[in-house]
């Protein structure tokens, strides 16, 4: 069994020619990274930074100007690589006349699932994405959240080793986003490698093991989430019932040991958490 990285990218560069004079626009600039197997990897960056182009190159939809890419040990853009990969594009659009169940079955057959296994694979994918009940409705009647979930179902129906999700929570309410976060965790628990492109940084922080940040086509940071976010030179102590006297005494003791208190604040919960606590009954299943 191949134990190398799920995705290995080396010196990836992509230039687009624009206008009549063929001016070059560098969308991806000498990017190199390795995404280990079995992890959730967040690919972040502002709009137009080259994330989607990088993903499209990895999937063989766009050809690179320079560089090498391999997926699960196979050269990219080959049938072997793509049959082991699932992809949810940004703002997915599917044929509206199909039902969700028909779409997922159709994608299963295109991805090489054997005829006798298709029904079970479809039901498993619909169950994981909480789309079993809505599976017989035509896609034209789906809400944005349901489109994302059926998109996720079609991406995972053939049980791929690698799942690439481009903005899976775009246009989805916080409850739906949290549900997609749970689905990502469930896929990780099954040993899948997941590449996640998202602007929901809070969610990325919660679900990803590693992140990479791109800006203007270049990779500006890559590492484990804990390593890149933790400030080792500062410590937060949470205390209950802190009186002014106790605070002064604590500051004096800390000062005696060379430490300086920079702030005393009350912890806050995130708006995202508060919203999800309050809103539970409006799921669009």
């Amino acid at each position, binding site marked *: 069994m191949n134990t190398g990285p799920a995705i290995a990218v080396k010196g990836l560069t992509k230039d687009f020619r624009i206008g009549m004079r063929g001016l070059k626009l560098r969308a991806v600039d000498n990017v190199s990274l390795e995404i280990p197997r079995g992890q959730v990897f967040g690919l972040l960056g502002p709009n137009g930074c080259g994330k989607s182009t990088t993903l*499209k190159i990895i*999937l*063989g*939809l*766009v*050809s690179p100007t320079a560089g090498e890419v391999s997926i699960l040990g196979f050269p990219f853009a080959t*049938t072997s690589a*793509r*049959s082991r*990969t699932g*992809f949810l*594009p940004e*703002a*997915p*659009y*599917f*044929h509206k*006349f*199909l039902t969700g169940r028909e779409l997922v079955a*159709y*994608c299963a*057959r*295109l*991805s*090489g699932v054997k005829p006798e296994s298709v029904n079970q694979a479809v039901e498993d994918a619909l169950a994981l994405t909480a789309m079993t009940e809505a599976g017989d409705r035509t896609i034209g009647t789906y809400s944005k959240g349901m489109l994302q979930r059926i*998109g996720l179902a*079609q991406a995972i129906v053939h049980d791929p080793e690698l799942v690439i999700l481009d903005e899976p929570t775009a246009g989805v309410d916080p409850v739906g986003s949290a549900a997609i976060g749970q689905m990502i965790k469930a896929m990780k628990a099954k040993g899948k490698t997941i590449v996640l492109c998202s602007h929901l940084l809070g969610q990325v922080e919660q679900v990803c093991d590693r992140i990479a940040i791109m800006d203007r086509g270049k990779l500006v940071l890559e590492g484990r989430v804990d390593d890149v976010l933790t400030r080792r030179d500062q410590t937060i102590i949470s205390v209950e019932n802190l009186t002014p006297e106790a605070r002064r005494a604590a500051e004096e003791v800390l000062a005696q040991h060379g430490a300086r208190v920079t702030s005393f604040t009350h912890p806050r919960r995130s708006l995202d958490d508060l919203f999800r606590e309050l809103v539970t009954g409006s799921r669009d299943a």
Partner: protein
Amino acid sequence: MPDFMKASLTRISWMTRLTFLEAIRQRFFAFLILLSAALVLSSVSLRFLDFGHGELKFVCDFGFGGMFLFGSVLAVVMSAQLFFAEMDNRTALTLLAKPVSRTEFLVGKFIGVWLVLGVFIFTLSTLLGIILWARCQELTVAAVEVGKAPPEFSITGLFSYTGMQWARLGVVAAMILMVASLARTFLFTVIVGSMLVVAGQLQWLAQETLLKPGDLNFFSKLLLSVSTYIIPNLQQFNIGDALTLDHGSVADGAVTLALFSGGCYIVVFLFIGSLIFRQREI
């Protein structure tokens, strides 16, 4: 059959199914088939305009004209529309991220469109066949009463012609998909494709001109020679009158030759189209 080939055929068949389902639902298809059917039916009531030709020939010409014209429009517009719908709606992104090759995508699209064109052409042909058969019965009785020879009508010839028209529309659809794989817009594809169809209908003129020695300079000869190979001769498929009403006048092997040539052009156009489409960035 090797596994990889079986898998490839499975993917093509699923692409075909999706394309067919999408195409058959289109209002444009319904509109054209209804319009063409109305034209074929109206030929019976307009037969007094036969300009001195036989009545069956007039009905035939009217029906064949409808099948030819609207079939060509349908082949050009639908092939381009179904291709660009996948690109513009970004459904191609989802499909081509799966283990579906660009060639399989294009071939699946072609077969799907061709099947819809088959539904169109065989529906109209059946309608025309019923009208011709019914009128032929009436005209035969009338001819026998006055001691004239009964009119000739071959239902086999009609369906041979229908098969040839289907092949012609297949050549047109493959040609349009080749142009679409290179083009950036639907409009460009339709305009260039339509021009190629007109050139194909007139290609026999180039062939005839080449047969007249001495009238042409070197460059004209070269241009005409190249065009006779690159552009298919679509006129060779239009022998409906002869097949249906005067079967004996069709040269031996004409149908086979036309079908073989059509098949070759379809394969070549799809091959070139898939080579171009492989380079396209989705």
